[in-house]
């Protein structure tokens, strides 16, 4: 058993697993990570399953460890006892070590820890901030909070992971159910600024006002990424803790593959939407999922020195024996964000 004692929780740190599913009909939000790609990679780096709980850190973060374990931070930077560590790594920490997380490029990072000891509420460990349950007592982390986790003994390792597009300012969208109500459709592809009144529930955008034939509809179910337009014409993008039903027109939907792009945006950042079709949205979803599975496979097997090799279309598991110590290992993963 290891313990993490929070010194500085930053702007907002919460425990999130992949989300709380199956209770949407009762109005229970899905919650879960704002950037599912970084979240899954952080988990994989410490030998967790992709959907295990991790700590979502907004802004910067500082904690001290009691006991030994392994940690990962994606996509931010770890400063361990004052030393900057490589990005996308798994690192061993000992009792007394001080870990700082620096969100130097995006706005949110995931701190991966083995077996976070968090009680399950309604079949998930995610914090539901709007209704104050789940995670750590239904609230954000505060200085002095102690979180227990398991010990992990993973050789320090680094994933050469290129996902710079996550920090770009383009999020792709598809047409939403009330798209036809929009009278100035070109406006949606103009540049918007993230309002300071944005949070895990939704991102309010400031920019060209959207003019609709009708703003209010009969309330219906909503999904993350849905772009609602209230009567003031300024769009609101539904994020992880969004209410499950809503009564404003939804003119478009940010594609699932690009939700992390928004999740990494902070107030006053700029975002531009680019219209694509559903077919591309699905292809990207499959592609990103496959990319993460490849990372998972490689990380699992690096422990066994097993590699999967494709020869003329057939897959082989190949065991690799070390003949010269080259100081750990590296894998290269590049994800290009086009279909």
């Amino acid at each position, binding site marked *: 058993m290891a313990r993490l004692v929070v010194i500085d929780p930053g702007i907002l740190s919460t425990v999130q697993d992949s989300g709380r*599913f199956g209770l*949407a*009909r009762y109005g*229970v939000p899905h919650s879960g990570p704002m950037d599912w790609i970084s979240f899954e990679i952080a988990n994989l780096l410490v030998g967790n399953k992709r959907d295990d709980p991790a700590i979502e850190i907004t802004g910067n973060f500082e904690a001290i460890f009691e006991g030994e374990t392994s940690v990962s931070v994606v996509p931010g930077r770890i400063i361990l006892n004052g030393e900057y560590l490589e990005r996308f790594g798994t690192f061993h920490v000992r009792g007394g070590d001080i870990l700082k997380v620096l969100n130097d490029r995006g706005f949110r990072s995931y701190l991966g820890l083995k077996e976070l000891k968090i009680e399950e509420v309604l079949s998930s460990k995610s914090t539901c901030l709007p209704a104050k*349950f789940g995670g750590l007592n239904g609230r954000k982390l505060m200085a002095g909070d102690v979180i227990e986790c398991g010990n992990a003994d993973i050789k320090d390792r680094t994933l050469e992971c290129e996902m710079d597009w996550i920090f770009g300012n383009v999020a792709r969208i*598809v047409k939403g159910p009330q798209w036809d109500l929009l009278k100035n459709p070109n406006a949606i592809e103009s540049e918007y600024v993230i309002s300071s009144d944005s949070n895990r529930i939704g991102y309010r955008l400031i920019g060209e006002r959207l003019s609709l034939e009708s703003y209010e509809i*009969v309330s219906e179910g909503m*999904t993350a990424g849905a772009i609602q337009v209230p009567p003031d014409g300024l769009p609101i993008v539904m994020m992880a803790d969004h209410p499950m039903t809503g009564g404003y027109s939804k003119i478009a939907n940010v594609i*699932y593959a690009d939700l992390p792009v928004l999740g990494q945006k902070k107030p006053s950042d700029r975002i531009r939407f680019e219209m694509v079709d559903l077919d591309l949205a699905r292809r990207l*979803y499959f592609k990103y999922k496959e990319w993460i599975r490849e990372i998972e496979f490689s990380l699992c097997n690096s422990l066994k020195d097993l590699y999967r090799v494709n020869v003329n279309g057939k897959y082989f598991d190949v065991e690799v024996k070390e003949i010269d110590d080259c100081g750990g290992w590296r894998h290269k993963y590049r994800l290009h964000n086009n279909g």
Partner: protein
Amino acid sequence: MVIEEMGERAIIVKFSDEISSSVHKIILAIDRFLTKSKPPVEWIPSYTSVTIFYDPEIISCEEIVGIIKEFKYEEIEESEKEIIEIPVVYGGKYGPDIEFVSDLNGMTVDEFIKFHSSFIYEVWMMGFMPGFAYLYGYSGSKIPRLERPRKSVIAGSVGMAGNQCGIYPFDGPGGWRIIGKTELKIFDIQKMPPSLDLGKRVRFIPL
């Protein structure tokens, strides 16, 4: 029936653009149909539509549409709908808007309490916050929302807006007119499924 896609992971199956008891009956029936046919999806029944969430790696949109096309309307008997009794303290400090709502109906507060508790309400949708049920059944004057929502409404508060009635399961902001409060825990995170669900009926018992 109109089927619309909402992103690559959700579809909305819509039966009407207007809220009515006849559409609600169709929603109840399709909700039961989905419960029986158990597709690997999650869904939210609402006033006039059902929103279905799916993972395209598990099931395709076409497959879901195929399942929906097999739906045939079968009416659900009123007697099948459980009635839940909710004790309410009307008015006083827990019902700051009761005079307003009574005046709107041209009644004294006592008359209004009698009137409000004479209806049998039915859950037509859930949403807004966990466990919040939109209850239909009231047929008095339409009630306008507060111009400025309250920053904090306490859990258990009974509110009204339009011809809907609802009970706040958690403390939180709210723009509905508050007429009373129940001690009953409306949404208990230790107890699933919650007592209120689509098609359940409610009777308010004045204390």
